[in-house]
């Protein structure tokens, strides 16, 4: 019997014991989708409380738990695993490899994630409640003043960090060793490039986060004083360590998104990507710069002026490679034969809104101005423009783009476009007014606000509900496509799509590229 061409195993054990990159990618995507809805549900609670001034629905302590869990789950549970899932699905297909380099470790790096987040979610039902120090969990809020559940939170971070590191090692090992003959580094699709660089960032900084939470653990349980001034430590040290992880982390989130739109925009412009080489170098430059700008998150801690200036100029420098990317995407579309299917709409939405988020980031990078913006809703608006309209929009575009290839069925285009426009309007209604209330002085992470912010907050809440509801349409569309979508058998699915994955049959078979393809 030829055991190289068997299909997937039957039943639950297929998913439990699978080493197939497509199965694992699918599990990552469904897991992150479910976390997206859980984190989104928490966001709805936050916006419901902020619908009107005064205390409306929930206690302040619970509000803090909601903002904390919303941030943690969206960053670590929804966005990061979704891109890891996409990497699992697409990288072997794009470089012509039969599977990931370390398939068993791949299985493990997925399966330790759900228990980690179960642990985190379970803290909601513990005495003292869930962690409430914000997703940045600054000490001493997260040590001296934390609920006992902080220990579970620390363990969760350790486990998901381990998962990320294993996933990254796998991706790097795959890209460096398993490319098809002729697939040189400078021929790799940009999604593979951005993920290769992202994986290096992850290997470098996830251990730093693990170090930070380990110090928290020791401060809480073993009598050390890393972050306690009374014991000779320093809470500001926590912020330095956290952001030394945290700033590369935001590029870990956005670089794969850059990769996705760099695949989609050329496909629907029916042109090659403009400035491929400069895209690669810009990605690498952003990754390098991400290590030397962390303190721009903490301008107000009392740094020496020389420090403020260094971090300000270094941060502004990031606008250069990012600008190169934005102009390259626009140049790709210039005089292209454009068509506006749902993936393209989400990519253009990404381009416009991410650029707005980039500009507000530039505003925040100005140290003297930041003293006004710091910890206000302006910051909230800024990072939702880059996290939601950046990462989540591009992820949505990726699903619409590759789902027909994966399952051989076409999604409902009308529903997809409706999803885009409701998302786009809802998102902007939710977050654009937050710029104004932030500049006017509304602080973030507070369950109540001054009366003059009432109208903008009500608009914000309505926008958030609309955006949240539109994701249910997305879920319905995805499920309906998989179950009963119109069949497609074209290898290319999209006439303008280029790359190895589009040379495979549609739907993509369970095993692919068992003999490496020839890359010219």
């Amino acid at each position, binding site marked *: 019997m030829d055991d190289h061409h068997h299909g997937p195993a039957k039943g639950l054990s297929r998913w439990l014991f699978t080493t197939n990159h497509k199965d694992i990618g699918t599990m990552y995507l469904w897991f992150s989708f479910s976390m997206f809805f859980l984190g989104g549900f928490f966001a709805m609670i936050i916006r419901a409380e902020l619908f009107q001034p005064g205390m409306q629905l929930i206690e302040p302590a619970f509000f803090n738990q909601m903002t904390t869990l919303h941030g943690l789950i969206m960053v670590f549970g929804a966005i990061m695993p979704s891109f890891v899932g996409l990497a699992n699905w697409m990288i072997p297909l794009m470089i012509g490899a039969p599977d990931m*380099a*370390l398939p068993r470790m791949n299985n493990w790096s997925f399966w330790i994630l759900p228990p980690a987040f179960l642990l985190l979610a379970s803290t909601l039902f513990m005495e003292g409640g869930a962690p409430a120090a914000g997703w940045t969990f600054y000490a001493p809020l997260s040590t001296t003043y934390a609920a006992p559940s902080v220990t579970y939170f620390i363990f969760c971070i350790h486990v998901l960090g381990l998962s990320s*590191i294993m996933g*990254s*090692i*796998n991706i*790097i*090992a795959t890209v*460096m*060793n*398993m490319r098809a003959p002729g697939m040189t580094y400078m021929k790799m699709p940009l999604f593979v490039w951005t993920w290769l660089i992202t994986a290096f960032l992850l*290997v*470098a*900084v*996830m*251990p*730093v986060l*693990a*170090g*930070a939470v380990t*110090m928290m653990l020791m401060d809480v349980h073993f*009598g*050390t*004083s*890393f972050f306690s*001034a*009374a*014991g*000779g*430590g*320093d809470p*500001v*040290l926590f912020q*330095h*360590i956290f952001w*030394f992880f945290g700033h590369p982390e935001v590029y870990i989130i956005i670089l794969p998104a850059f990769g996705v739109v760099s695949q989609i925009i050329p496909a629907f412009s029916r042109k090659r990507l403009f400035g491929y080489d400069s895209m690669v170098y810009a990605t690498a430059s952003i990754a390098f710069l991400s290590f030397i700008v962390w303190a721009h998150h903490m301008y107000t801690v*009392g*740094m*020496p002026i020389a420090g403020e200036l260094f971090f300000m100029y270094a941060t502004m420098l990031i606008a250069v490679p990012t600008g190169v990317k934005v102009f390259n995407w626009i140049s790709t579309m210039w005089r292209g034969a454009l068509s506006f299917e749902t993936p393209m709409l989400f990519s253009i939405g990404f381009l416009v809104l991410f650029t707005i988020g980039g500009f507000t980031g530039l505003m925040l990078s100005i140290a003297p101005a930041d003293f006004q913006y710091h910890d206000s809703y302006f910051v909230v608006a800024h990072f939702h423009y880059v996290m939601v309209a950046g990462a989540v929009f591009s992820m949505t575009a990726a699903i619409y783009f590759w789902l027909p290839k994966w399952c051989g069925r076409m999604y409902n285009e009308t529903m997809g476009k409706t999803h885009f426009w409701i998302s786009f309007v809802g998102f902007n209604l939710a977050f654009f007014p937050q710029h104004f209330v932030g500049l006017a002085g509304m602080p973030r992470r507070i369950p109540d606000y001054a009366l003059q912010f009432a109208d903008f907050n009500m608009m914000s809440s309505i926008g958030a509900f609309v955006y949240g509801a539109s994701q249910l349409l997305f879920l319905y569309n995805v499920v309906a496509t998989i179950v009963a979508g119109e069949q497609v058998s074209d290898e290319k699915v999209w006439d303008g799509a280029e790359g190895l994955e589009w040379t495979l049959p549609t739907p993509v078979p369970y095993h692919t590229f068992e003999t490496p393809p020839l890359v010219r």
Partner: protein
Amino acid sequence: MLKLSNNPIVDTSAKLAVTAVVMFAFVFVVMVPLYNVLCDVLGINGKTSGQAYTSVEARVDESRTVTIQFIATNNAGMPWEFSPTKTAMKVHPGAVNDTVFFAHNPRPDAMIAQAIPSISPSRAAKYFHKTECFCFNQQPLDGGGSAEMPLQFIVDQDLPRDIGTITLSYTIFDVTDMASNALAAR
């Protein structure tokens, strides 16, 4: 380049795993000490030196008077009575000053304590020199015992002129259980 295995995939993975472990260690053995050194050099977080200061040609500046305030705090769960005998002193920069803190152990059994100092405003930290301090050593006390704990200090003549008041805060820790271990940082 160094090869950890003949299988290229194992080789890449092993190198990356080593990198991850090195980065984890980096936090503890580089970032924390480096941060402390930088703060020490720049004098930006109120940490005073853990070493006794040996003065060079003290020149008392009679024209200036600086107020030194003393604060004593007990860490959570520390039962000792701990207080400064004088809550404030007016001193001249360059002069040698002495004061005493009082400690009493109300428990029946012997205990060991460690006091940790902090200076506010933090800019003043590098101009505040302790020539003798109970915080340099651990303080044992028998059950029910009391002690007067000496502190001798000099305010540097180079103290910026806009600083008129310096607050010296001590927090006292129960280190009976880990008396043999040196405290992580002072």
